[in-house]
C-alpha cells in the first residue's frame, strides 16, 4: 500500500537520482515482528546490488517526525534492520530505498513503502483470581455480561470455600483466595471461571473478545502445542460458536496454525456469521495466509457458486471446524470442513522469490484462536500430525470425534465395563478442552414397536458429537448407551439430528388358506376351520390338513368311564374297550385324554378317551 499523501505534507521526499532508477528499486520491504516490541526490517533484492539502505519507520505517515510518537530514521549497510523498543499495538509506517554509496550516499532509487502494527499483549487486565473479588478487563465490550460472570465466580468461590470448610479444609479454602498476581498455577483453582485480558474461560468454554470494530484488528491467543513439525500432513480443528444474534449481530473468529508465537504469521481460517458479511460477495469462510501482519486471502473452492457454503453461518450453533493440511516443498494444501462441508485452498510458493509473503510458511507447533468480530467461543481445539496413510484412508477427518471417541461400554458378560475413557484418540496429537466437563451418558432401554425385528445397529446419523458407547440388541428391543462427546448441550433427537435403531421388521404378509375340494359335490359338507398362528408354510398347512381330514372326517367318539381304582393310568395311554352292548368289541383304540383320581376311603378313577383312527 502506498501513502501518496506523504510528500504533499512534508517528509523530504526526493525523486530517485540513479541513472536507471529501476535498478535500485526494492522489490519489496518486509517487516518481521518478533515480539510486541521488536521487529526486523528486511529489504528485498534490487537489480543492482546497493552499497547501503536508508529509510524511516514512524508512527506517522508523514515520515517527518511531526506529531509522531515514535520516529526512527535509519541507514544500514545490508538492508536488515533490527528495531527494538517499539510500542505494542502501535501502527508504524515504513519507507526504505537503496543507495549506490555507503552510509546512504550516492545515487538512489525509489522508496518502497510498508506499514505494520505491533501486536499488543492482551492480558492488560492482569491475571485475575476468581475465588474472591473479580476484576474484569476494562477492555471488554460487554460490561454487563462480565459483571454477571464476576458474580457467578464469586458465588462459585463462596460455595467452594464452604465445601472445603465443611470438609475440614478451611485453610485451603482461605489460601485459595485473593492471589491475583499468581503466575500459572500448578494447583487446581477450584473454579470453572477465570478471566485474563481479552480471554476468559467460563463453563468449559474459551471466550475470546475483540473490542475493535476495525476488521483488520484481531484478538488472538496462541499456544505452543509441542506437536512434531516433521510431518507432511496435519489435522487441526475446533468447535466454534457465536452468541445469540440479539447480543452481538456481528460475529467472526477462527483458528490459526503454523503461526509464530505472537500471531503475526501463520495460516488462519476465519468463520463469520452471515450477518457479518460485508456484501453478497463476502464469504462466511475465509482462508488467510498472514506473514508479518500482511494478510493474503487464499483463493479457494468457494469461487464458483456451487462451492459456497449453503446455509451460511448463523449464531447459536456450534460449528465443527476440521482442517486437513498437506505440506509439500511448493504448495500447502488446506482442506477445511465446516460441519462436513468442504472448502479447499492452496498456498503456492513463487519459485525463487525471497518475498516471505510469496513463500510457504514452514510448519510450527504453535496454534492460535482468534476473534475477528466481537465474541467468539471455543469448545475445544486440537492439532494432530498425521501419517500419510491416515489421510489416504480418509480417516483423518475422523481423528477428532471427541474426547471419548475410543471409549466403549462392554456388555458381553453382563457386568457393564467402561473402557478407554479419557484416552486420547491420537497418541501424538494435542487436544484441549477448556475445563472439566460432566457429559451426559444416556441409557436407553426400549422395545421395538413391532414384536419381532432384526436390528442392525444404533446410530446417531451425522451427529458426530453423540457417540454410541455400547449397544445390545434383541429381536424385541435394545439397550443403548449414548454419550455427549461435545462440551455443550447437543441435540440427540431434534432438528436435523436423529437417534435411532436401524433394522428390519418381520412382517406378516397376510393370511393364506389351504383346503382341498370335497370328493363329491353331493357330499354333505361338514366344515371345519383351523386358524393357525405359527404355521408359515403351505407344506406344514397341508400336513395338518391331511391329518385333520384323515383323523376327523370319520365319526369321532369320546368315552367317559368310571373304572375300577387304577392309580397307574395316565393321560396319553392307549386303551381298548370291550363293551359289546355299546358296539365296542375291544379292537377299537382310544387315547386317554383326561384322568381323574380320587382317594377317599379308597381309590376311584374316571377317565375320558377319544377314538383313534390313524
Amino acid at each position, binding site marked *: 500500500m502506498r501513502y501518496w499523501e506523504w510528500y504533499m505534507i512534508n517528509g523530504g521526499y526526493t525523486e530517485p537520482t540513479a541513472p536507471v532508477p529501476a535498478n535500485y528499486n526494492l522489490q519489496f520491504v518486509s517487516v518481521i515482528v518478533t515480539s510486541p516490541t521488536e521487529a526486523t526490517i528486511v529489504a528485498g533484492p534490487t537489480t543492482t546490488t546497493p552499497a547501503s539502505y536508508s529509510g524511516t519507520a514512524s508512527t506517522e505517515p508523514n515520515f517527518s517526525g511531526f506529531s509522531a510518537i515514535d520516529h526512527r530514521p535509519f541507514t544500514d549497510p545490508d538492508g536488515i534492520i533490527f528495531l527494538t523498543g517499539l510500542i505494542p499495538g502501535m501502527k508504524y509506517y515504513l519507507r526504505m530505498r537503496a543507495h549506490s554509496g555507503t552510509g546512504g550516499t550516492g545515487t538512489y532509487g525509489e522508496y518502497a513503502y510498508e506499514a505494520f*502494527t505491533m501486536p499488543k499483549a492482551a492480558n492488560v487486565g492482569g491475571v485475575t483470581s476468581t475465588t474472591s473479588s473479580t476484576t474484569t478487563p476494562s477492555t471488554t465490550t460487554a460490561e454487563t455480561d462480565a459483571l454477571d460472570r464476576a458474580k457467578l465466580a464469586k458465588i462459585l468461590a463462596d460455595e467452594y470455600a464452604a465445601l472445603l470448610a465443611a470438609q475440614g479444609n478451611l485453610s485451603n479454602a482461605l489460601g485459595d483466595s485473593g492471589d491475583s498476581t499468581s503466575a500459572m498455577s500448578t494447583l487446581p483453582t477450584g473454579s470453572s471461571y477465570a478471566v485474563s485480558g481479552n480471554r476468559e474461560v467460563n463453563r468449559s468454554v474459551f471466550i475470546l473478545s475483540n473490542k475493535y470494530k476495525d476488521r483488520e484488528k484481531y484478538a488472538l491467543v496462541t499456544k505452543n502445542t509441542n506437536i512434531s513439525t516433521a510431518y507432511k500432513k496435519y489435522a487441526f480443528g475446533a468447535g466454534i460458536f457465536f452468541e445469540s444474534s440479539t447480543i452481538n449481530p456481528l460475529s467472526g473468529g477462527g483458528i490459526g496454525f503454523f503461526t509464530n508465537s505472537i500471531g503475526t504469521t501463520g495460516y488462519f481460517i476465519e468463520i463469520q456469521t452471515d450477518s457479518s458479511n460485508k456484501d453478497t460477495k463476502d464469504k462466511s469462510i475465509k482462508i488467510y495466509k498472514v506473514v508479518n501482519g500482511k494478510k493474503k486471502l487464499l483463493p479457494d473452492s468457494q469461487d464458483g457458486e456451487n462451492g459456497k457454503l449453503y446455509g451460511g453461518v448463523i449464531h447459536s450453533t456450534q460449528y465443527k471446524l476440521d482442517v486437513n493440511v498437506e505440506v509439500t516443498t511448493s504448495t500447502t494444501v488446506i482442506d477445511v470442513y465446516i460441519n462436513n462441508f468442504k472448502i479447499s485452498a492452496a498456498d503456492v510458493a513463487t519459485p525463487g522469490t525471497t518475498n516471505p509473503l510469496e513463500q510457504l510458511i514452514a510448519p510450527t507447533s504453535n496454534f492460535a484462536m482468534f476473534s475477528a468480530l466481537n465474541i467468539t467461543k471455543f469448545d475445544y481445539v486440537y492439532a494432530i500430525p498425521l501419517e500419510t496413510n491416515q489421510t489416504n484412508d480418509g480417516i483423518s477427518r475422523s481423528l477428532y470425534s471427541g474426547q471419548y471417541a475410543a471409549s466403549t461400554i462392554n456388555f458381553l458378560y453382563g457386568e457393564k465395563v467402561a473402557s478407554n475413557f479419557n484416552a486420547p484418540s491420537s497418541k501424538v496429537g494435542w487436544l484441549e478442552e477448556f475445563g472439566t466437563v460432566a457429559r451426559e*451418558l444416556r441409557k436407553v432401554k426400549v422395545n421395538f414397536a413391532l414384536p419381532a425385528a432384526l436390528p442392525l445397529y444404533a446410530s446417531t446419523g451425522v451427529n458426530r458429537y453423540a457417540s454410541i458407547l455400547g449397544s445390545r440388541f434383541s429381536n424385541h428391543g435394545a439397550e443403548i448407551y449414548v454419550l455427549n462427546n461435545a462440551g*455443550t448441550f447437543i441435540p440427540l433427537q431434534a432438528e436435523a439430528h436423529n437417534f435411532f435403531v436401524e433394522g428390519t421388521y418381520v412382517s406378516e404378509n397376510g393370511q393364506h388358506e389351504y383346503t382341498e375340494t370335497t370328493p363329491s359335490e353331493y357330499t354333505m359338507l361338514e366344515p371345519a376351520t383351523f386358524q393357525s398362528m405359527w404355521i408359515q408354510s403351505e407344506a406344514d398347512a397341508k400336513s395338518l390338513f391331511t391329518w385333520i381330514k384323515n383323523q376327523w372326517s370319520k365319526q369321532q367318539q369320546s368315552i367317559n368311564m368310571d373304572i375300577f381304582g387304577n392309580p397307574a393310568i395316565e393321560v396319553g395311554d392307549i386303551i381298548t374297550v370291550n363293551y359289546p352292548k355299546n358296539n365296542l368289541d375291544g379292537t377299537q383304540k382310544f387315547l386317554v385324554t383326561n384322568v381323574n383320581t380320587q382317594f377317599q376311603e379308597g381309590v376311584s378313577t374316571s377317565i375320558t378317551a377319544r377314538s383313534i383312527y390313524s
Partner: protein
Amino acid sequence: MYPLEPVAKTTLEQNTSVSMGSSLRFEYNMNSMIDNITVSGADITKTDSSGQTYTPFKKLFPVDSIIKPFRPQGAGLKYAISGDVDSGWKNPRSIDYIPNFRIYYPGVDTTYKYYISALNTGIDVTITYPKTILTNKIVARFELSHSTPATWTIFGNGSQLATGSSSAIVPFTTNGNKNYDAGTVTIYYNGTSWSTTEPATPAAPVSLTSVKITSSGVSGKYVGLIELSPKWYLDATEHLVSFDISKESSTSSEDLMPVGKVSANSLSVSLISYEATRKMISYDKTFTLDPSKIYLYKQMEIKPFIKLYNSSGSLTDSMGKYDNILQGVFYGDTWSFSEHGDISLTALDGAKILQETMAPPLFCENYSITAIIRRLLDSVGFTNYKINIKTSDDSIITPRYWWSDNTKTVWDCLQELCRDTQMTAVFSYNNVLQFYSRNWIFDATRTTNWSFRSESSGSDLPNILSFNKNDLPSANQVKVFWNSVSTSNYVQSAQDIWKSDPYFLGAMALNNDLLSTTGPGGYINLSPSVVNPEELGLTLYNYAGYLVIGSEIIEYDAVQFEYVDLNGTKQFVDLTSKTDNNKYLGLAIQGGALAPSGKYRIKTRGALNTKIETHYAAAQNIIDSWSGYEVTWV
C-alpha cells in the same frame, strides 16, 4: 403310564379285592421361605489394561442364582465359555436333539443363570440365613456339562455334614435312560447323621443358620453349581382326609380338534388340623420356623402317593408289601381353613411355574417347533421335559420365524405352539413335562397300555363301573389358515425400527472440585455448558442417569432445585421425578417457580466399573496457558 411291575398290574386286573392306601408328603425349600439370604462365593475376576479389576461373569454366573426359586431339576444347560466347549456342532434347529446337554451362547438377558467356579478350581459357596432354618434334606446340583467334581462336602453351621465322591452325583444317564435329576446330590438327615440314603420316614429337622458346599476342582474345567437348597420334608398323611387329582390334555375333550387350551393338572386335598393350638398353619416369612408345625405356603412341594398293596411291592408296612405310586408333583396354590380346622388345599403341577414365568425375549429363525420348545424351556432353566415324536414325524412344523412376546408367559407360548401342531403337553407322574406330537400320540399302532371291559375275559375281571359314549362332530371340508412372514435380508432396505423421543444430551461444566471422597448422597455442582446464555437454566433431561467426568462415570439419582416457600424462605429440594416437581410447585409462593440449583445428587461413584477420581475445576490454569494478543493484519 406309570411303570407298574407285572404283579402289581395283574393285581389290578385280576384280584377281586385290592387294598390301596395313600400318603401325602410336603416339602419346603428354605431358600424360598426366608428373605435376605446372603450367598458368598468367589467371582471370576479379570484385570484390564489399566490395572482395574472387574468381574465380567458376575451377572452371567451370579453366585446368588443358586438360591433362586424353581431351579432346574437336572443338569443339561451349558453356557459356552471359550475353551470349555466340546468340538463338533449340533444343529439346535433340528427336530431331535440327542446330546445330554445343550449349549447356548450366554447373554445378560438370559433368564436362567447358574454359578461356576474359576478354572481348575472347586466350588466353595456358603449360604447364610438371617434366622434359623429347619432342614432334614439338602440338595446340591452340579452342572455336569462343565465337569463332574471328584469329591464334594456339605457343611452346616461350619461343621461337615456329609462328604462323598462323584458316584453320589446323579449322572446324565443310567443304563441309557435319561436322568431328569442329573447332577444332583441329596443328603438326608436320619435323626442322628447325614447321608445320601433316604430314611424310611422323614426325620425331625435340624436347625441351621448356614449351609456350605465345597468340591474338588477339575483340571482344565469349571465346576458349575445350579442349586444348593436345604429342605424340610415331612409326612402329612395323618392330616389327610382325601385328595382328588385331575389330569387332562386339553380343557375340552369334546372339541373337534383334540388340543385346544393346554391346562395344568390340579390337586385338591382335604386336610384336618383339629389340635387346640392348630398344628397346620399358613406360613409367613416373619415366622420363626417351628418343627412342631406344618406350614402351608405357596410353592410348597406336595407329593400325593397311592399305596398299591401287592405281593411284589417294594415297600412294607403293617398291611404288607406295597408299591408307593406317585401321583405327580404339585405346588401349593390356594388353601382355606374352616372354623374347626378343616383345610381345603389346591395345588397345581409344574405348569404353575411356567404359568408364572414371563417368556424371555426369543427369536428363532427356521427352528423346528421342537427346537423352539427346547429353546423356550431352556431359556428359563426348565429341564424336566421330554419331547415324544415318531421317527419320521411330519407333524413337526418349522416356522420361518418364531418369536416370544413379552406379554405372554412361557405356558402361553407353549399353548400356542401345541395348538398349532396339535401337540399334547402334560406332566407325567414324575414331574416331567411330556410333549406328544399328534403323530405319536394318535398312532393306533402303539401298544395298548390298558384294556377295559364290561365283562370278564379269561382271568381278567370286568373293570368298567360306568360308561358313557359321545359321538363327536366330524369334518370333511377342512380349511387351514396360515400366515406367511417375511423380512428383508438386505441392509439397504433397513428402516428405523426405533426412534428416540426428542432429547438433548447435556454437558455441564464442573463448578467446583469434586473430591474422590464425595460419595453417594453428595452433590456434583455443575453449570450447563450451552451455546446461548439464555439456556443457562437448563438441567439434564432426566432426573436420574449417568455423567462422565474424566475417566469416571458417576450415576446421579436426583436434581436439586430451589424455590421460595410460602413463608418466603428459600428451600432446596432433590427432585427425582416430574411428580416431585409438581409437588413442590404447589409449595412455592404464588407465582413462584422451581429453579435448578446446579447440583446433582450422587448415587454411585465409579459406576460401570470406572475408577473414582478427584476432578478439578481449573479454569485459571487453562487461561494462563494461553498468550493473548491484539494483532493487526492488513
